[in-house]
C-alpha cells in the first residue's frame, strides 16, 4: 500500500515561544502554536463553534467562530488562526454576532431541522447555538430539500435532513477510529456524507460499528436506534483520551 508522507509540523510556529495578545480587551498569553479559539476557551471567553471539536483536526468551514482583529476589516476563523504578538481580537462585536446569526439562519434553511420531532431535541448543538445567539426567527426562506434516511445499520441511523455537513463523523472515523468509512460526495448544496462509496451503511464492510460518529455528531443526523424524541444525548468524553493515546497533539496541520 502506498504510504503517505508523514504530516509535517508547521515549521513557522515555534511551540516553545510565548506571546501575549488581547482578546476582548483582556490580556492573555499563548504558545505560538495555539489557536485563538483554544486560548479564548482557556480564558473562559466563549466563541461559538460548530465544525470544531476538541480532538479532531480543524476544518475552518462553519465560519461561526469568526472574530475581528482591531485595525483590520477582515474576519478570521478563530479555530484555525494563530495569534500574533499584540494582536487585538474582538470576539463579540455587533458585526461579528450579526454575521454568526445569519450563518446559523442559513444552516436552518438549508435542510429540514424540525426540533419538535427530532430525537436530539434538547441535546443538539445547532439548537443550543441558536438559543445562545438569540436566533428567534429565520429571515431567509426555507429550502425544504428532499433527503433520505438510511436505517440499514443494525444499531445506528442517519437522517440526512438534519445533517449540517460539519464532517465530524468523517474526521472521527478517519483520524480516531482509522476506518474511514465515512466520506463526502457531491458539491455545494448537493453535498452528502456517505458510507463506503455511497452504499447503505448496513452493508458497509469497513464500518467497525464503534459508534464514534454518532457520538460526535452535533445534531440529530446520526443517532442510535430505539431513541425517541429528545432522547438522543451524546457522549463525547472518550475523545481527549483517544487523542492522547494515539499521540496526536496539537500543532500537526491537517487538511
Amino acid at each position, binding site marked *: 500500500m502506498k504510504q503517505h*508522507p508523514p*504530516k*509535517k509540523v*508547521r*515549521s*513557522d510556529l515555534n511551540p516553545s515561544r510565548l506571546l501575549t495578545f488581547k482578546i476582548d480587551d483582556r490580556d492573555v498569553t499563548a504558545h505560538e502554536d495555539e489557536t485563538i479559539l483554544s486560548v479564548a476557551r482557556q480564558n473562559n471567553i466563549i466563541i461559538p463553534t460548530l465544525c470544531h471539536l476538541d480532538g479532531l483536526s480543524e*476544518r*475552518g*468551514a*462553519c*465560519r461561526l467562530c*469568526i472574530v475581528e482583529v482591531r485595525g483590520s476589516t477582515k*474576519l478570521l*476563523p478563530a479555530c*484555525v*488562526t494563530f495569534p500574533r504578538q499584540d494582536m487585538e481580537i474582538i470576539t463579540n462585536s455587533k458585526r461579528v454576532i450579526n*454575521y454568526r446569526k*445569519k*450563518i446559523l439562519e*442559513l*444552516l436552518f*434553511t*438549508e435542510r429540514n431541522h424540525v426540533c419538535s420531532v427530532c430525537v436530539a431535541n434538547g441535546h443538539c448543538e445547532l439548537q443550543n447555538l441558536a438559543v445562545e445567539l438569540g436566533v428567534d426567527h429565520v*429571515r*431567509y*426562506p426555507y*429550502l425544504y430539500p428532499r433527503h433520505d434516511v438510511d436505517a440499514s445499520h443494525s444499531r445506528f441511523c442517519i437522517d440526512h435532513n438534519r445533517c*449540517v*455537513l460539519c464532517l465530524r463523523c468523517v474526521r472521527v472515523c478517519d483520524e480516531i477510529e482509522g476506518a474511514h468509512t465515512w466520506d*463526502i460526495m*457531491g*458539491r*455545494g*448544496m*448537493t*453535498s452528502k456524507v456517505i458510507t463506503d462509496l455511497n452504499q447503505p451503511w448496513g452493508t458497509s464492510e469497513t464500518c467497525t460499528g464503534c459508534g464514534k460518529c454518532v457520538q460526535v455528531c452535533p445534531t440529530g443526523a446520526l443517532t442510535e436506534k430505539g431513541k425517541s424524541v429528545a432522547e438522543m444525548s451524546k457522549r463525547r468524553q472518550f475523545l481527549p483520551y483517544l487523542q492522547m493515546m494515539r499521540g496526536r497533539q496539537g500543532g500537526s*496541520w491537517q*487538511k
Partner: protein
Amino acid sequence: MTLNIEDLQQIARIEKSKKDGFQHRINVCLAAGCLSCGSGLIKEALEKEVTRRGLDSWCKITGVGCLGLCAEGPLLSLPTSGSYYQGVQVSDVPEILDSLNGSPVARLVCPAETPFFQRQVRIVTENCGRIDPERIEEYIAEDGYAGLYQALTQMTPQEIIDQVSGSGLRGRGGAGYPTGLKWMSMAKAMGSTKFIICNGDEGDPGAFMDRSVLESDPHRVIEGMVIAGYATGANQGFIYVRAEYPLAVKRLRLALSQAERMGMIGNNIFNTSFHFNLQVRLGAGAFVCGEETALIASIEGRMGRPRPRPPFPVEFGLWDHPTMINNVETLANIAPIIRRGSQWFAGIGTEKSKGTKVFALAGKVVNTGLIEIPMGTSLRDIVFAIGGGIPQGGRFKAVQTGGPSGGCIPEQFLDMPVDYDSLAQVGSIMGSGGMIVMDASSCMVDVARFFMEFCMSESCGKCVPCRVGTRQIYDILGKITASRATMAEFTMLEDLCDLIKNTSLCGLGQSAPNPVLTTLKYFRDEYLAHIHDRQCLAGACKKAEEVL
C-alpha cells in the same frame, strides 16, 4: 540527449532554411475554435490538392495555433503575402491555390489592416498562429528555449528572480500578485523538495486564453516552468489542465515528450547539474480547483476543496512541501523576459501593471476572439476599435470582466485604462481575462443571475455562507427577474452579498457576490423597475404570469 547552444542554433537554422525553401506557405488555424468549424478538413484538402498538382516543394501547408479572430473561422494565414482568409470552406481550396501567385481571393480576404490586428502587442501569443505547436523545432526556430539556455548557463537563480521582479510582471490568474515576490518567497522556502504548478484550470465562462496558449504554443509554458524551477530550486513541476481541453492536453503531452527527448526537461538540462521533471495532471471539471489550495488537494488525489490560508502553499503546499502556483499566461511571459530583459518588459504597460494581457473577447461584439493588448489600453479601444463595436448598430451597455468573480463595468467607465488597480477600483477584477460585452438587450439582473447560478453550482459546499448563501441569492434573483420580488427581498439580497463576501472561506465565495454588487451599484434602476413597475427595462425577462 543533452544539447548545447550550437545544437539549438543548428536546429533553428535547418528549420528556417526549410521554411524559406518554400515559395508559398499556408498556415491553417488548428486551434479548438477553428477546428470545430472544419479547419482540419481544409488542411487535409489543401494538402491533397497541393500533392495532386505536384506542388509539394513549392507550397507548404502548416497547421498552426490560434490566429485570434475566432468568430470568423476557419482562418487561414499566408505569411508570405501577409494576408488572412476567413470563413474558408473546403470548396474554396482550388481557388486559394490558384491565386497564390496573383491577387488574393477577394471574397475570403480578412482585412488585416484593421485595429484588431494592428493594435495588438504580442508577447504571450507571439507564436500563436505562426508555428506548428506539434513540432518543437519550429518553436526553437523562433528563439525557443534560448531563454532557458541563457538562464541555466549564464544566470544565477537570484539574477533570474531579479529580472522577473524588475519586469514588474504580476500574476495573470486574476489577483495580480507580483510574480517576482512569489518567486523570491519560493526560493527562500525551506525544504529540499519543492514543487511548481502551472494553473491551467481555466473555468470562467467565456474565457479561453489559457486554452489558446496551451494549444498554440505549449513549449513556451514548459520553458517558463523549467526556468521557474531553476530560479526557485524546484525539481518537479505539474501542469494542471482541465480535462475539458482535450486538444490542449494532447498537444501539451506531445510537447512534453519532445522536450524530454531533446533534453529540455529531465536530468542535466543543457549539460548543467539542474534537473527538472514535468507532468500533466487533469482536473475533473470543478471551477473551485482554480483556487490554489483546492488545486493542490486535487493533484494529491483528494477532493478539490480549499482550506483556510495561512499557511500559504509556498510554505505548505503539495504533499506539505513548498509549492509555487503560477498561471499559464504568467509562465508564458517568463521566457521573453529572460531573453529580452526586464527593462524591455517594464517599458510596456502602465505604472503598476506591466506588460500585456491576453483577453478573450466575447459577447455582443463584432470581432469575437483572442486579443493581446498592452496594459492600460482603454475599454473603449478594446470594445470599439479592436472589437469592432456592437453588431447591428446596437447600443453598448456594459462589459463584464473577470468571470464570475468579476463585475459589470458600465458605459461611464469606458475610457478607463484596463489595469489591475483601475478595474479593482470600479468593483471588478482583471481576472484571468474573460471579457463579455453586453448591449442594450441584456438585462443586468439576468446577467447577475447567470453568474450566481454558476457560483452556486460550482460552490464546493465546504463553508456555510457560500454553500447556502449563493443558493439564497440565486433564488432572490430568480424572483426579481420574474417580477415577483418585494423590497424586503431586495434588502435581503444586499445583506446576503455582504455576508458571503465577508465570511466565506476561499476566494470563490468571497468574490461570488461581485457580479451582483456591481450591477446593484451601476444598474440599480433595473432592479427597482423589476420590483416596483414589474417590468424589465431591457425587455429580456419574462414576467411570472407569462412564465406560468
